[in-house]
């Protein structure tokens, strides 16, 4: 086997030799897609690196990169790495004060930014960041009258680079030769839900090795296309766009502006796509809205064929046997009439592999894409592990799991249920935070993810909750409230759910119904109602919710680990949980402890034999007045299945 290039700059030159004329970057500018070949990119990066060197950039220096996905910003990262420096991409929508923290923490001396907006933010925090010496901007608009000595236009940096390269013709090659795979390739700041963000230092070796595994896993080649629209500061963009292009030699396409992503998607037709669940959700919502606005023929066709897709689409995608010929033919027809045109409009006609991750995806959403033939899969990982912990392989996809561990990745489940990971993609350290590093990586080299999960019978990892939120029932079996709540919330009729069971003998739940969805449902059945509280107390609605809960119980019973978490008793709350009443956080997360205190009476009733409970609650109205609402709440028993029955018998 020939020697494989082991740093990103060497990979860049390798690609430029291997496929000089193939496109490496595309960007839509002034309405036209412009292409740069690998050879051109290698040259641009050389010039840029020389320009930075002329400004005094040295080995180990750090370069902040801030802006939307632009070829020039990617080149700036490449140039910094070529010089033995470390690029630090920042979230472009962060406010100045947040940027100041990262600029100080990472000792940043140089920055390459997109436009005036970012320049303004950096200039604002300049007094707090004395190390920041040079700011290079790509788009000069609005910056003509800025006289600050720190500022350089991108073109001027290139000019300086050309001059420098002429006088030091061997400089670039020499610098490249000095790079080692154990050098830090990038520092990525994790958003950090608590406290200040932490910088994750990843080496060339870790990123490259991970990218090689990924490229082999899905068989990416130079002909693949990817649209990079997710923030450059996010590990996913660095890994899926930047690192993988270096290995597979495919082309990165940069959208014209963040607002044009949908149009650009259609024009490029990527073969490889990544998005968090919310992106898939907003695409689907748009489709549904537009279909409802379409003429009756289109609407009928759409719904008829989507029903076919729902029935057999996923089976056909996965190549399952036993699908009747009639359905196969119908699906084929649907592909011509509905799915094909739909995928075309969404820019998804050519997608070979699509991923989602980061949070749980709803079953309807997941199945929709898979049923129209888009190979949507899930993955699991975090910045600290170069993402890549578990992934679905094509043909082995389950909604509930994130797939089996990737080649080379060891996954262990601690006694607490926490997922531990050891892999070649593990971070070197948290930048300047030896304490946090020691806390996260144990003596055996396992990274503590903070997530709780377990392996199912097929060897797939199932992530259920944050480890700190996971508890145990009285009999010692696992209790993961958020997992149960999410399961309930995937039903359109359930808006919020709060599950209880920590240290108890069974799981009970509070439920908030979704007024819009249930209101609609009630109208179709000619059930009159006045508002939330009225709907919530109607027997027909309670029956509907009971069916949802029992369906969830049926699912839970399939899973031996969670079978005991089936929901035995529940009630539908008489008021909606509100952030104003302290029941939800401002980001609409359930504040479980507060709710448990506030509604202690109801919880006691759930865990007794009572069939109803009277409750009176203070609430604040939108105009600031407060009042009380009271209701006599019915407690509903839900059927449980299988494993639970077995336990009772034992």
């Amino acid at each position: 086997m020939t020697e494989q290039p082991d740093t990103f700059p060497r990979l860049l030159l390798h690609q430029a030799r291997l496929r000089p004329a193939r496109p490496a970057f595309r960007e839509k500018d002034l309405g036209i897609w412009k292409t740069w070949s690998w050879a051109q990119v290698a040259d641009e990066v050389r010039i840029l690196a020389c320009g930075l060197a002329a400004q005094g950039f040295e080995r180990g220096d750090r370069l902040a990169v801030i802006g939307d996905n632009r070829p020039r910003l990617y080149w700036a990262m490449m140039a910094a790495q070529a010089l033995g420096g470390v690029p630090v991409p920042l979230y472009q929508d962060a406010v100045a004060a947040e940027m100041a923290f990262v600029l100080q923490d990472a000792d940043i001396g140089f920055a390459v930014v997109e436009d005036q907006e970012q320049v303004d933010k950096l200039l604002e925090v300049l007094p707090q960041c004395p190390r920041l010496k040079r700011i290079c901007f790509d788009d000069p608009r609005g910056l003509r009258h800025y006289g600050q000595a720190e500022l350089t236009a991108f073109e001027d940096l290139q000019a300086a680079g050309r001059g420098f390269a002429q006088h030091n013709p061997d400089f670039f090659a020499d610098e490249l030769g000095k790079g080692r795979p154990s050098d830090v390739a990038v520092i990525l700041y994790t958003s950090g839900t608590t406290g200040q963000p932490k910088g994750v230092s990843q080496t060339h070796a870790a990123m490259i090795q991970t990218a090689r595994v990924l490229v082999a896993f899905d068989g990416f080649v130079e002909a693949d296309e990817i649209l990079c629209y997710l923030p450059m500061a996010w590990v996913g963009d660095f890994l899926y766009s930047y690192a993988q292009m270096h290995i597979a030699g495919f082309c990165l396409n940069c959208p014209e502006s963040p607002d044009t992503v949908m149009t650009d998607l259609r024009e490029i037709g990527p073969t490889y796509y990544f998005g968090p669940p919310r992106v898939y959700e907003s695409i689907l919502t748009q489709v549904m809205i537009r279909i409802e606005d379409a003429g009756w023929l289109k609407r009928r066709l759409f719904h008829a064929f989507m029903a076919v897709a729902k029935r057999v689409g996923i089976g056909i995608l996965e190549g399952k046997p036993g699908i009747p010929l009639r359905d196969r033919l119908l699906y084929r027809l649907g592909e011509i009439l509905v799915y094909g045109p739909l995928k075309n409009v969404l820019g998804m006609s050519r997608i070979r592999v699509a991923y989602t991750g980061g949070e749980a995806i709803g079953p309807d959403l997941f199945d929709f894409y898979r049923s129209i033939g888009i190979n949507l899969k899930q993955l699991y990982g975090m910045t600290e592990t170069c993402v890549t912990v578990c992934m679905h392989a094509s043909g082995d996809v389950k909604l509930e799991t994130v797939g089996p561990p990737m080649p080379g990745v060891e996954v262990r489940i601690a006694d607490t249920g926490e997922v531990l990971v050891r892999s070649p993609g593990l971070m070197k350290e948290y930048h300047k935070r030896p304490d946090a590093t020691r806390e996260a990586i144990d003596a055996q080299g396992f990274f503590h993810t903070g997530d709780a999960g377990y392996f199912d019978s097929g060897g797939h990892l199932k992530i259920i909750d944050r480890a700190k939120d996971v508890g145990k029932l009285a009999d010692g079996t696992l209790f993961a409230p958020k997992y149960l709540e999410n399961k309930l919330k995937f039903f359109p009729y359930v808006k919020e759910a709060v599950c209880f069971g920590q240290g108890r003998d069974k799981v009970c739940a509070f439920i908030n119904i979704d007024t819009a969805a249930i209101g609609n449902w009630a109208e179709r059945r000619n059930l009159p109602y006045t508002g939330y509280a009225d709907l919530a107390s109607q027997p027909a609605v309670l029956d509907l919710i009971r069916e949802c809960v029992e369906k969830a119980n049926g699912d839970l019973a399939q899973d031996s680990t969670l079978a005991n978490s089936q929901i035995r008793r529940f009630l539908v709350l008489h008021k909606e949980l509100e952030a104003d009443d302290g029941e939800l956080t401002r980001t609409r997360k359930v504040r479980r402890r507060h709710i448990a205190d506030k509604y202690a009476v109801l919880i006691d009733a759930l865990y007794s034999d009572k069939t109803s409970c009277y409750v009176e609650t203070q609430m604040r109205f939108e105009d600031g007045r407060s009042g009380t609402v009271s209701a006599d709440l019915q407690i509903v028993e839900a059927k449980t299945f299988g494993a639970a029955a077995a336990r009772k018998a034992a």
Partner: protein
Amino acid sequence: MTAGRKIGRPILEIDGVSLAFGGVVALQGVSFDVREHEIRAIIGPNGAGKSSMLNVINGVYHPQQGTVAFKGRRRRNVDPHEAAQQGIARTFQNIALFRGMTVLDNIMTGRNLKMKSNFLQQAVYWGAAKREELEHRAKVEAVIDFLEIQHIRKTPVGRLPYGLQKRVELARALAAEPELLLLDEPMAGMNLEEKQDMSRFVLDVNDQMGTSIVLIEHDMSVVMDLSDRVVVLDYGRKIADGTPDEVRNNRGVIDAYLGVAH
């Protein structure tokens, strides 16, 4: 704000213009000038004659008395299309776009006067006509980029919200590469954020393209922030002329706005 911008000699001189429709006097002996690279605001209460003034400048109305000199060429009666050829473009108080056409096509109409190929050449779309269209399209794309409306390039104008339609209208005016841009209430009916965006675009146009701008606007904070000099009209007469500060403290202006017995 005006750091690197050089305000030059007068590009437009209005001298003693009077305009009447039958017995209704719209303008009475109004004189003022607009200098190169300047942002000049015209303000005044409703019916003061502001829009009439713009219509005189770009030749829609022909004044009974007085003259308008653009780039040193004095003239009394000029047609709108001659004015456009000389380098005057405008937007309208009540948006005047082709609602069924896309944003791109609407802006392309702004290039109409610059198109040299004839109807037949364009019909076959070959040779010179094709080359020309590509050049025009490139100019239009530069404007689209400048006003950040890439995402609606192919959207029919009728489907756009009001604020964006205003921006498209500005784009069409800019596509004509004017030396003098007349904006008739560019921010009417906009919310605060849209106003801020539009203000930035007006300043950028003035700064980067060096276009002189005559602006009618009711929002005083916008006028005071944007303009170099302000003309105040009331009942067709000029009652004040000067920098925003001078105008703000002018007794006659305060009276006109707060209302006194005439």
